[in-house]
């Protein structure tokens, strides 16, 4: 489930740095760290220095030890280990990887025919895949619910200020709305106390301390009050083909929230789930869409919410989701996966977290009713089911958040 560049990219990056690879181990180590950096891993100079210091202590002819030394020094995230391994093999063996892709990560859920089809999909240009996926998506909707089709065409049914046709002005407005939401969430009260000028109770320790200067007679009182608690938000964004027209908004939303708030984790999913928190941590929003979509499996592909939630619950939820976590799911709810699985995973998720908010861009359409099976299965587990199709809806979201944390 990690985001990875292709083998070709690794090979070409290694080749590009082959000129700076000198004779000694140190020159090679430096080149290696630059390759890693170039492929998007965060490697600091101090880490490289420590790695080279570490090499003094081990027998570098033992490949396993050499590997452990570099790994433990240069990498500090489990998700990055897989990529590190591939670069390590490529760089230090000095052989090229097979020109053919070795193995693509399986997108399908075992036992689900529908997604089996989709995994044949990736290949050809991005546009082709998108076109293919979108047409598939629409075909399928047609099959499933003929009455529903007329309302399901985002460009038609939503008004002109839809995010799908967003301009710079709107984009600024979104930024402001996100700030508002963020500030609402960031002001929840904690059970922990902190010192305050006008608190509700006396802090004996600090009162003592403050009054030492008066010889121990209590003259000044120090009080404390409950402090503000930081709620964690986990964003799960649907980036399948049917959500394509909202992708710019999605990116901005993800960026905005993550940069405004502490501890926001961001995931995107289509047929599989990818954690992109680290990808959008940078301030450079310009190339974001490109960078993320190139590293995410199945961008603009089909949708398998159940499977993605399953991955989330299994891999990430145990450590990320607590009773204080607000889960924000952004999806149109068009699910092609197993509905039973989705229901089960929604139930699991609901048990763990504080609130689940589902944002559905289609909800704004007057004719829209959450009829499709996936959405139906999810409804009982939602705390809030809101629309996000324009700035006003975001402001409404802000109000909901305020109620939530009050």
């Amino acid at each position, binding site marked *: 489930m990690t985001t990875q560049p292709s083998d070709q990219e690794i090979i070409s990056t290694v080749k590009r740095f082959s000129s700076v690879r000198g004779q000694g181990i140190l020159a090679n180590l430096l080149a290696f760290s630059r390759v890693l950096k170039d492929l998007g891993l965060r490697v600091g100079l101090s880490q490289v220095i*420590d790695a080279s210091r570490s090499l003094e202590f081990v027998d570098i002819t033992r490949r396993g030890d050499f590997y452990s030394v570099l790994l433990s020094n240069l990498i500090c*995230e489990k998700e990055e280990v897989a990529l590190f391994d591939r670069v390590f093999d490529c760089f230090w063996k000095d052989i090229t990887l097979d020109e053919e892709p070795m193995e693509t990560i399986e997108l399908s859920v075992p036992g689900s025919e529908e997604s089996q089809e989709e995994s044949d999909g990736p290949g050809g240009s991005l546009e082709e895949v998108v076109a293919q996926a979108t047409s598939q998506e629409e075909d399928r909707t047609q099959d499933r619910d003929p009455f529903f089709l007329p309302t399901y065409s985002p460009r038609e049914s939503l008004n002109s200020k839809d995010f799908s046709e967003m301009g710079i002005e709107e984009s600024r407005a979104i930024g402001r709305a996100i700030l508002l939401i963020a500030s609402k969430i960031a002001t929840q009260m904690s059970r922990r106390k902190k010192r305050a000028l006008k608190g509700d109770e006396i802090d004996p320790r600090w009162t*003592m301390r403050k009054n030492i200067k008066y010889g121990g007679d209590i003259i000044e009182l120090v009080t404390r009050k409950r402090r503000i608690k930081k709620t964690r938000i986990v964003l799960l964004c649907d980036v399948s083909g049917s959500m394509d027209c909202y992708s710019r908004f999605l990116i901005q939303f993800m960026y905005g929230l993550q940069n405004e708030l502490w501890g926001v984790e961001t995931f995107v999913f289509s047929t599989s789930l990818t954690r992109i928190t680290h990808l959008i941590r940078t301030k450079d929003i310009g190339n974001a869409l490109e960078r993320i979509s190139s590293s995410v499996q199945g961008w603009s592909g089909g949708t398998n919410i159940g499977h993605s939630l399953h991955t989330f619950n299994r891999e990430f939820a145990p450590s990320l989701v607590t009773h204080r976590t607000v889960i924000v799911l952004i999806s149109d709810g068009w699910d092609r996966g197993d509905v039973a699985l989705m229901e089960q995973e929604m139930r699991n998720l609901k048990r763990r977290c504080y609130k689940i908010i589902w944002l559905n861009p289609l909800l704004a359409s007057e004719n829209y009713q959450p009829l499709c099976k996936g959405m139906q299965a999810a409804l009982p587990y939602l705390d809030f089911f809101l629309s996000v199709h324009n700035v006003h809806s975001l402001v409404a979201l802000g109000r909901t958040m305020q109620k939530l944390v009050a």
Partner: protein
Amino acid sequence: MNPKKLSIEKIQEALRSRQYICDRSLATVVYLSINLGKPVLLEGEAGVGKTEIAKVLAEVMQTGLIRLQCYEGLDASTALYEWNYPKQMLRIKLEEIGKGDRRTVETEIFTEEYLVKRPLLEAIQSNGTTPPVLLIDEIDRADMEFEAFLLEVLSDFQITIPEIGTIHAKQRPYVFLTSNRTREIHDALKRRCLYHWIEYPTFEKEYEIVMTKHPQIQTHLAKQICAFMQQVRQMNFYKRPGVAETLDWASALITLHRDELDEKSMEDTMGCVFKYREDLHHLKSEVAGKKLNLEGIFKDPMEFQT
């Protein structure tokens, strides 16, 4: 054990002799950390032995273990030091009666005698023959503010107390940080650490752990337990069992004098492995649906080594 005469093999062997089975890569990281004076950041699922290694290493090095359990709201006065205010007040009152010299009192009540040492200061000030092991447990539970000042302690190994001055570490403690990844640790802190992710053990390793911790267990039973665990961890449970659960279960079965596993004794003792009603329920449905091949595991556990 003399820290100067260590090698990767020796560490692995010493840990093993204290019943901690680890692979060579973890031993390498520990070895490096001792030699470089760099903290180790351990991450992994719950119950894979993150905390344990610090405890065992303290035993191996025959030195003290100083443990700091993190929680939200952990602040400098609980982690570093605090002045002993009641004691200071008493001293002042006493001096009032004896008409003591004000200036002496002022300097005296801000000396080490009136200082309550918390784990980090204790670790830095320790002056035994071998540095202590400092375990900063579940760092992800503490808040960002705490992380920030931990940064100072871990990079320079010094603590500044305004009234006294800066206290430098006489010797660098062996620092272990553990994290359950409930939130991301700041890069600056990560960069100062050696990183190691502890995986769930393989069948062989888990078998070795069970046999080491419970030498009296029947080998067939141990294999059955490990095979079961390996299978269950591949499945979709709310809380996947760790090594701690394996050992609990093994000791429960030993207490019940079971020589091998059967469905009845498994059901009776499942509470050791799964701690949620839903998971127990889920297990039953998996068994009923033949997704979990119990008979196979019971009969021929070596077949299920994956």
